[in-house]
């Protein structure tokens, strides 16, 4: 046992050294009686755009709060996880042990979250995911020190299944990447879609050219296509789908057309569908203020990554305020986060028993704004006050 303890200690020290050398830390303010946040957001590699959205969303939240959380000055350490779990663990450990952060916030990808969830929560630090929402932490693996301001991934796919069902589509073609999240997407869609799935096609994650799949879709003549193609995959698919003249077949997607990819997809994505719990055009005062000031500060349209991170900042603000700044009282702080007394950009917001939000989900569609930029806009509400399918399995200890 001592060997293990020593090993961890040494890794911690090494990690701290690594972070001191390599971590691009944004230090807002350094004061003893403040709140320290470790903001985990991927800043390098092909998915960096998503991490940038997340970071900017959280920082915009802090700006609206005058750099304070619950009245205490806030200091943010931006941690680049490099989309590598081992790097994320090392840097997050250093943030907890050396920098003594009070909260770890952020995380775009589920595999990074899976790697850091134990090191963070077992140290007694609260982990607030603002994007990744894996099923593993929603059901039996739910954790009292873990919260998410986003959703359970399966919910979003099932929303599209319900939307396809509601639209009366009978035959749907399913196209996803061949890895766990891709198969989960297909399963989530089918959990609510009761029509016929004419074909399920799985493509490698490195796919560049979808011409073979597009020819198959044309041959199958489905009522609609359901797909989950995050990042660059989605950029390629959407443009090639349009070029192949298939755009008259409704394009139902999750995490494929959003404000992070729309600048590259442009006109090609116009009219394509996505499912989300938030869109930039949502009509409430908190959202109007967020979108307007975010675009003024960062000069691009925010996506869900930014909106959920903004909510994360507001959530922490409400919780720290509720406990009167006494961050040491973990039980009171947990209850205060759980209460979630803040104005979400999504409108109503509450946590379920498993610390995942219970919220409305929308069918959204890509639209062109008057200023020429593209964004997703709500079409209709698909699920109201939806609890994720795993919440019942959660026994919070």
């Amino acid at each position, binding site marked *: 046992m001592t060997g293990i303890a020593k090993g961890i200690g040494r890794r911690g020290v090494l990690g701290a050294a690594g972070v001191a050398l390599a971590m691009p830390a944004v230090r807002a303010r350094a004061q003893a009686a403040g709140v320290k946040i470790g903001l985990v957001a991927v800043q390098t590699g*092909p998915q960096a755009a998503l991490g940038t959205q997340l970071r900017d969303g959280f920082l915009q939240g802090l700006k609206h709060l005058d750099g304070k959380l619950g009245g205490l000055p806030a200091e943010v350490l931006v941690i680049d996880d490099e989309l590598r779990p081992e790097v994320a663990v090392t840097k997050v450990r250093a943030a907890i042990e050396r920098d003594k952060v009070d909260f770890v916030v952020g995380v775009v990808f589920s595999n990074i979250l899976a790697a850091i969830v134990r090191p963070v929560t077992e140290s007694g630090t609260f982990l607030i995911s603002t994007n990744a929402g894996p099923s593993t932490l929603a059901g039996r693996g739910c954790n009292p020190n873990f919260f998410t301001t986003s959703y359970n991934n399966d919910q979003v796919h099932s929303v599209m299944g319900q939307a396809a069902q509601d639209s009366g589509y009978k035959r749907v073609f399913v196209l996803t990447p061949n890895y766990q999240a891709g198969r989960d997407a297909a399963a989530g869609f089918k959990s609510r879609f009761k029509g016929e799935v004419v074909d399920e*096609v799985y*493509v490698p994650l490195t796919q560049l050219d979808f011409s073979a*799949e597009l020819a198959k879709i*044309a*041959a199958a003549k489905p009522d609609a296509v359901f797909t989950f193609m995050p990042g660059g995959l989605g*950029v390629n698919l959407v443009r*090639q789908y349009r070029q192949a*003249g298939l755009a008259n077949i409704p394009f139902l997607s999750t995490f494929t057309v959003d404000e992070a990819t729309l600048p590259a997809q*442009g006109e090609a994505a116009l009219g394509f569908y996505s499912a989300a719990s938030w869109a930039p055009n949502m009509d409430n005062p908190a959202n109007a203020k967020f979108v307007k000031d975010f675009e003024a500060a960062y000069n691009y349209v925010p996506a869900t990554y930014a909106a959920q991170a903004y909510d994360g900042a507001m959530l922490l603000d409400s919780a720290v305020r509720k406990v009167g700044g006494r961050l040491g009282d973990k039980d009171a702080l947990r209850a205060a986060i759980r209460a979630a007394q803040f104005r979400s950009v999504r409108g109503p917001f509450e946590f379920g028993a498993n610390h995942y939000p219970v919220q409305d989900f929308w069918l959204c569609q890509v639209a062109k704004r008057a200023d020429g930029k593209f964004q997703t806009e709500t079409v209709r509400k698909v699920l109201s006050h939806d609890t994720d399918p795993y919440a019942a399995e959660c026994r919070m200890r």
Partner: protein
Amino acid sequence: MSLGLLLVQGLNGLQFGVLLFLVAAGLTLVFGVMDFINLAHGVQYMLGAYLGASLAAWTGSFWLGLVLALPAALLCGLVLEWLVFRHLYERDHLSQVLATFGVILFLNQAVRAIWGSAPLQMPVPALLEGGVQLMPGLQYPVYRIAILVAGLAVAGLLWLLVERTRVGALVRAGATHAPMVAALGVDIRGLFMLVFGFGAMLAGFAGVMAAPVLSVDPGMGDTVLILAFVVITIGGIGSVRGAFIAALLVGVIETLGRSLLPDLLRLVMAASPARQAGAALGSMLVYIAMALILAVRPRGLFPVRG
């Protein structure tokens, strides 16, 4: 599986193959003639796409973007050669791999610093917009046919250049007997630089051609690079003809395997495992084909060195 679909898939495979050839041609020349492993070749493809996309946006014309991107890509290649690569010709392959890998990391980050990490878009030129109805419901984009034609034209030009001109003869001679060519008074350094710049320009051309179809993002060259290495290994290192045949082979195997295998497996298995196994096998097929070809012909289909 109708005949029309099969035809379209075959065409898709050829078109993908031609794009691969444009990247692989430069790679095989550099590797074959200079005995230099250039992992950064994929990055030159990426640079071409970025230069093309931003020059097209700047000038407002795809054609101007294409025409300006070619000398820009050539220049980038020559600068890289002058700055980094020429210091590595005498070193062993490991040093070359390490240094050119470093160039990949550097340029991927540089591209991100200059253009941002969100993917760029490059519109299809108006002349090549729209599609041809090859099978019911599917418009085969004219632009993809243009890629096919442009690739075949470049292949023809390259063949003429390598087989029928003095420079081509020197390049071929340099590939097999470099010291002898140098002893005959040919400036082998200059020849190398020419080959290198030309290879970089071809990769850049492939990048510009691919930009309207694929997403232009940092790291787009990395996936292409792996397949390009498969192509030059199958084709025989240094052989442009081999690269051409191998690229078409890889393109067709990749595309047809991906689309046909799940359906074929469904004849002998249940639908769900057939889809999974088909998808997995489909992405392995190119490498299985490479292993088989190398087992029969260890030096590739058209070996250059005796």
